């Protein structure tokens, strides 16, 4: 059953060939059997999931494609009555008293929640090693990282411990782990999916999205997740197109740009070769591949590491030990409560980013850092706008390398930050981006990133879907988890 895609499972459920309870119990058994070595879940909601599955089976007559599909949620989506930790000691004791908007929508569609997945603390990281609950392991090689920050969500899908999962992407946190784990992951346009109830890292960059085996599966999930939300002022009030129906449209004549800046120097030659093969497939489908330029691309990481920490330093100030979350033992006074609660409960990377962000916003530095970074952000957006005047999608590798070893980069934050070199500009510009598996290199997955214009998720979903009709990389399962 776990070898079926979400779309296939949905059909089998609708045809009553399988029940949601069977499917849910199957995944729970797999989680029990395999997650000990992967550490992809922080909380498994076995009983609740089976309840939800029975419920879904009982109202099978109702039409909702996702009814009874068991998925996993990154542990920063608040779900009513469920521990929501953000991978941090700070929220180890926090039980969300409300549902995030996307969680509510998925529940209404009858989706079953298997559990909450492990992640880099407060979504800050590219390796899922910084969790209070321990590092997540890559199912293709458990000595390696799965990428991050949505590493648990990527691993749960890659090892077939869930039909699909939700992640969030601030600088690549859906696409990079999707690439490193060999699954399909979509970061929608900023504003396409409500952020309400999604614990904030960097508010102007965060966006929730689906992670699944196929682009088609992502389309099903996005269909339910997308749309305006009165509770999120930055969610955009535009109609949600029929992503699923659109998948079968032809891609013939689509123009795809390859930014020369991403291929010029230092790109791993094997990754370049995989990209070359993928391009050949797209060309055979009638796409036109042409070189483009994103002249400010190299500034993206620097700008990101000012803007994201600046917003984070403010977003994470509410964790002060006063109302919920961790509070230190026997504080002497208010100052002591603040400083010890925060020093004791935040991990190193979180503290580093809070410090960077606080500095960047400080009087006397604000113009030189924050304002400057915002200017660069505009330049990067303009680069993409110019590109989309000529092409329908922009293609690149998702990550510069395949999965690296656990602890390999954890002492060298700057090298770690470079993992997101191809993905970060997309967040700064607020564009939709998708990672699709294009093969294995020394047994480790390689991902290709497709980026389209604002609210043109249909374009990259269609391209990825058509590509997946021609290839089977996305259907490969790591041997130990078949």
């Amino acid at each position, binding site marked *: 059953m776990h070898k079926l895609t979400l779309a296939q499972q949905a059909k089998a459920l609708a045809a009553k060939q399988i029940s949601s309870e069977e499917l849910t119990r199957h995944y729970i058994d797999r989680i029990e059997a395999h997650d000990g070595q992967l550490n992809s879940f922080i909380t498994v909601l076995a009983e609740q999931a089976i309840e939800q599955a029975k419920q879904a089976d009982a109202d099978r007559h109702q039409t909702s494609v996702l009814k009874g599909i068991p998925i996993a949620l990154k542990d*920063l*989506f*608040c779900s009513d009555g469920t521990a*929501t930790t*953000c991978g941090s000691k700070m*929220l180890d004791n*926090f039980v*969300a*008293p*409300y549902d*995030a908007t996307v969680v509510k929508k998925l529940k209404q569609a009858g989706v079953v929640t298997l559990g909450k997945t492990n992640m880099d603390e407060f979504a800050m990281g590219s390796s899922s090693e910084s969790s209070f609950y321990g590092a997540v392991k890559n199912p293709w090689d458990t000595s390696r990282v799965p990428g991050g920050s949505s590493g648990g969500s990527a691993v749960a899908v890659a090892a077939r411990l869930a039909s699909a999962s939700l992640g969030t992407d601030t600088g690549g946190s859906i696409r990079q782990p999707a690439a490193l784990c060999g699954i399909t992951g979509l970061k929608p346009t900023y504003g396409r999916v409500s*952020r*309400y*109830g*999604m*614990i*904030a890292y*960097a*508010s*102007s960059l965060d966006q929730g999205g689906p992670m699944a085996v196929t682009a088609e599966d992502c389309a099903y999930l996005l269909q339910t997740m997308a749309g305006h939300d*009165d*509770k*999120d*002022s*930055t969610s955009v009030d535009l109609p949600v197109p029929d992503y699923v129906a659109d998948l079968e449209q032809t891609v013939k004549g689509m123009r795809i740009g390859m930014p020369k800046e991403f291929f010029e120097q230092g790109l791993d030659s094997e990754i370049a070769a995989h990209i070359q093969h993928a391009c050949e497939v797209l060309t055979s489908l009638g796409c036109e591949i042409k070189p483009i330029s994103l002249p400010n691309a190299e500034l993206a990481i620097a700008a990101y590491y000012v803007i994201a920490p*600046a*917003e984070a*330093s*403010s977003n994470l*100030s*509410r964790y*002060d030990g*006063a*109302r*919920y979350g961790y509070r230190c033992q026997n504080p002497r006074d*208010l100052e002591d409560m*603040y400083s010890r609660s925060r020093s004791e409960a935040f991990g190193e990377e979180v503290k580093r980013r809070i410090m960077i962000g*606080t500095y960047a*916003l*400080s*009087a006397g530095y*604000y113009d030189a850092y*924050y304002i400057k970074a915002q200017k660069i952000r505009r330049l990067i957006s303009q680069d993409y706008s110019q590109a989309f005047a000529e092409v329908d999608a922009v293609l690149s590798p998702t990550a510069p390398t395949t999965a690296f070893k656990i602890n390999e980069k954890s002492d060298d934050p700057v090298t770690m930050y470079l993992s997101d070199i191809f993905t970060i500009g997309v967040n700064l510009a607020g564009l939709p981006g998708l990672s699709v598996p294009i093969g294995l290199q020394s047994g480790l997955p390689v991902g290709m990133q497709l980026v389209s214009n604002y609210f043109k998720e249909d374009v990259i979903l269609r391209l990825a879907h058509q590509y997946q009709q021609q290839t089977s990389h996305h259907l490969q399962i790591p041997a130990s988890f078949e």
Partner: protein
Amino acid sequence: MQWETVIGLEIHCQLNTQTKIFSGAATAYGAEPNTQACEVSLALPGVLPVLNKEVVRKAVMFGLAIHADIAEHSVFERKNYFYPDLPKAYQISQLEKPIVEHGQLDIMLDDGTPKTIGITRAHLEEDAGKSLHDDFDGMTGIDLNRAGTPLIEIVSEPDLRSAREAVAYMRKIHAIVQYLDISDGNMQEGSFRCDANVSVRPKGETKLGTRTELKNINSFRFVERAINYEVERQIEVLESGGRVVQETRLYDADDDSTRSMRSKEEANDYRYFPDPDLLPVVLDASLLAELQANMPELPEQKQQRFLEVYGLSVDDAQQLTATRAMAEFFEQVLAQQSLPAKLVANWVLGEFSAALNQNAIEVADSPVNAERLATLLLRISDNTLSSKSAKQVFQALWNGTQSVDQIIAEQGLEQMSDTGELETIIQQVVAANPQQVAQYRAGKDKVFGFFVGQVMKATKGKANPQQVNQILKQKLS
């Protein structure tokens, strides 16, 4: 040396919306702690602010009332600092692009001349919660009911030159927000409070002196006293060769003094930046036009109308329009009965206002409503009551539930206005006092008063004084 005082005020005024500025939680005052704190008020992980559009309307109305520039595009920013009553550890406020800028209003100085005070800006922001220091065994309680209540912060230019001017300015702003019905202006409940920036400089000097900021003053009386105390303190410091330290000071009403809270060196760096959770507020031209077309009458316009329509004196018109409640009460009384406006003005500003002050209550809580006062005034204008008896009736109205006519009947206060009866009594008085009659006729005018007194005594004060004068003059001539 001659010193000049320079004052600028920052007034925090709660807007009277039903719900908070960024959430649907209620704003009512006085609820049990934390019963009006939703997940947004509590700053739970994952929540987001959504602007209550009503606050924009109210801020724009204020801007129009002070002839200010209304920003087509204003921006909410985060003011970051840790405090237990600030659950997000940042306050959403406006810094670089406030919704209202460059306004002005006129105040009346004590000598009757007008003075224009510049208003630098008025911006929208959220109020904080409250720390409760009692009854928690050495711990502090937090009540977040007030957290997120909409505020407009109104910042004046340093144009005020005395505590009296500051109070006049504050009263005028208070009147405007109530006329606009954008705030209840309740100072006891903290809906309207101010910080004062105070400095002194030698007369003739153009550079500003070092200022101190007096925090959270919540009555007109305290504003005047706090500023006066602070001005004296600063002058004393300077005259004894010291220098004023830039700092925040707290006014203590109990011993009428100010004391240091924190100096500028310890001041927070608030690390303002645009709030990424909120879009810029873009003002729709049609909304602006709609608000402009429907602006309520403001104090000055009402004053002008009172002069023209009711023929009141400038002084009366000014006093009556000083608060919206008083002006409305005046017109309600007039609407009840056909009464001379001057009579109504005298009573509303005289007896009625005095009773309110004495009992420290607002117009709305007065036991004498417009209808009862109008009936009373009608009995004066139709000569049923002398003005002296009318005061007696007013006291009875204030303290009881009887009607005006019941009180008059019960206390026998009806004026004797029957000319025949009065003539007989006067005739008797004149006849009984031949000596005084002779004196009066010999030119001793003062004796006239004696006769009036005798008549009043004989009628137990019920005689209509005008009639008494008239008839007496006839009989004595």
